[in-house]
């Protein structure tokens, strides 16, 4: 946990999950698991968010919504797929309206397994995402510097 230097904010969107993972994501924010002690806040605004938590698979109707939310988030950003449905479609894989996991719409960095994903697993996934975020930030800064040098 030593690597947390800023307070990363979360954006949560329910793709097409059964609610199970969503209430576990919310449970992470409430007193028993309480990720707020690390400065992690659930924000409703994609423009404030660093980490995008998506639960559930992708279908025709929400594909554009997930894509749009992802595009609205500022760089650098990390996507966490929470639950088996978000990873590959899970129990609904064969259902006619499910295209597949979240990676069918946007690039995913961390996959959290489980049905429903336990809060401990979600927190673990978010901590992994923080590491990815750190690396992305460094790469982002380096790219910016290089761009400045060539100008």
């Amino acid at each position: 946990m030593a690597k947390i230097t800023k307070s990363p904010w979360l954006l949560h969107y329910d793709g097409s999950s059964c609610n199970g993972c969503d209430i576990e994501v919310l449970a992470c924010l409430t007193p028993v698991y309480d990720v707020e002690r690390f400065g992690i806040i659930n924000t409703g605004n994609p423009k404030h968010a660093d980490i995008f938590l998506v639960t559930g698979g992708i279908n025709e109707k929400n594909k554009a919504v997930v894509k749009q939310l992802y595009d609205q988030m500022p760089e650098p950003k990390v996507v966490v797929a929470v639950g088996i449905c978000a990873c590959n479609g899970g129990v609904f894989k064969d259902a006619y309206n499910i295209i597949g996991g979240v990676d069918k719409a946007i690039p995913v960095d961390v996959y959290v397994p489980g049905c429903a994903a336990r809060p401990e697993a979600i927190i673990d996934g978010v901590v992994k995402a923080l590491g990815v975020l750190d690396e992305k930030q460094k790469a982002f800064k380096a790219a910016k510097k290089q761009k400045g040098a060539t100008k």
Partner: protein
Amino acid sequence: MSKRSIVPFGPQHPVLPEPIHLDLVLEDEKVVEAIPSIGFVHRGLEKLVEKRNFHDYMYVIERICGICSFMHGMGYAEGIERIMDVEIPDRAKYLRTIWCEMSRLHSHLLWLGLLADAFGFESLFMHCWRMRETILDMFEASTGGRVIFSVNKIGGVLKDMDNSMLRTFVDMFDKMEEEVRQLTNVFLKDYTVANRLKGVGILTKEDAIINGAVGPMMRAAGIATDTRKLGYAAYGDIDFDIITGKDCDSFARCEVRINEIFQSFNIIRQAVAKIPEGPIAVDVKGNPNGEAFVRLEQPRGEAVFYFRGDGTQFLNRARVRTPTFANIPSLVKILEGCDFADVPILVLTIDPCVSCTER
């Protein structure tokens, strides 16, 4: 008349954990019309019944919704048991009743928390969810899962709760009741809560009937309907009254759900006192051939299940009419003429479960 404007609400909205979209037609600050559009969570799991063995389909139907997953599984089990003429052991009926009421408890506490969050009472939200965790711990101890339990099977239940565990649970509920009473007193007595809820979103008795409301929406309008009185599982042996409200507004709906929390404590106590010894499941042989309707009282209202089998291991048809779907016409009705700022609260007072609605 002032100019009309359309404000989109959702699918992603801070107050909603789930996606639902409403187009709100506004005249100044008043909502004139609300046009709902659903389908963001549609997976098509009723169709999956043709691809899965009818025993395995239990794991799919439970995942209609993570909040009332137990009751969806139970509705399916009851339906298939009716088709196949299976009489389940009494102990299994009581265990199902206890888990049902525990689901209702955790669902209502969850809803109270979300409501508190919607009117900006953050600490109340946290307290509700803290108490809910105790019930989830009990679920974990008795079934092994926190939100998806997979404890129903056709012909009974998969896991037993021994008597010492049941006694411990009752002790825990006794302690919890005190705490919950303190918590709900805030909802019932605090003037900030009353200011946000009283007189907001009135759904009269006539409107509730015309729009076909179910569950706490209907009961808050003063109409006593409760499918538990049909006596499925062990409810026939349990003594309880239907809770109704008078004022038909958001506050009445909150009050009805709060009273139902205490009713659930009561039902669990009665069930634990009466639970008989014996087996928890019977063997089921053969395939379902025929059709069945099942009605269940879920935390959000009445759910209707329909199943049809043709003697093979795959069912022909599964259909679920979930309570939130039945409550959407009432939601559209109460949104007409409300203040724009009240929209999140009104959406929450029907206790929306979008993944149930769209399946």
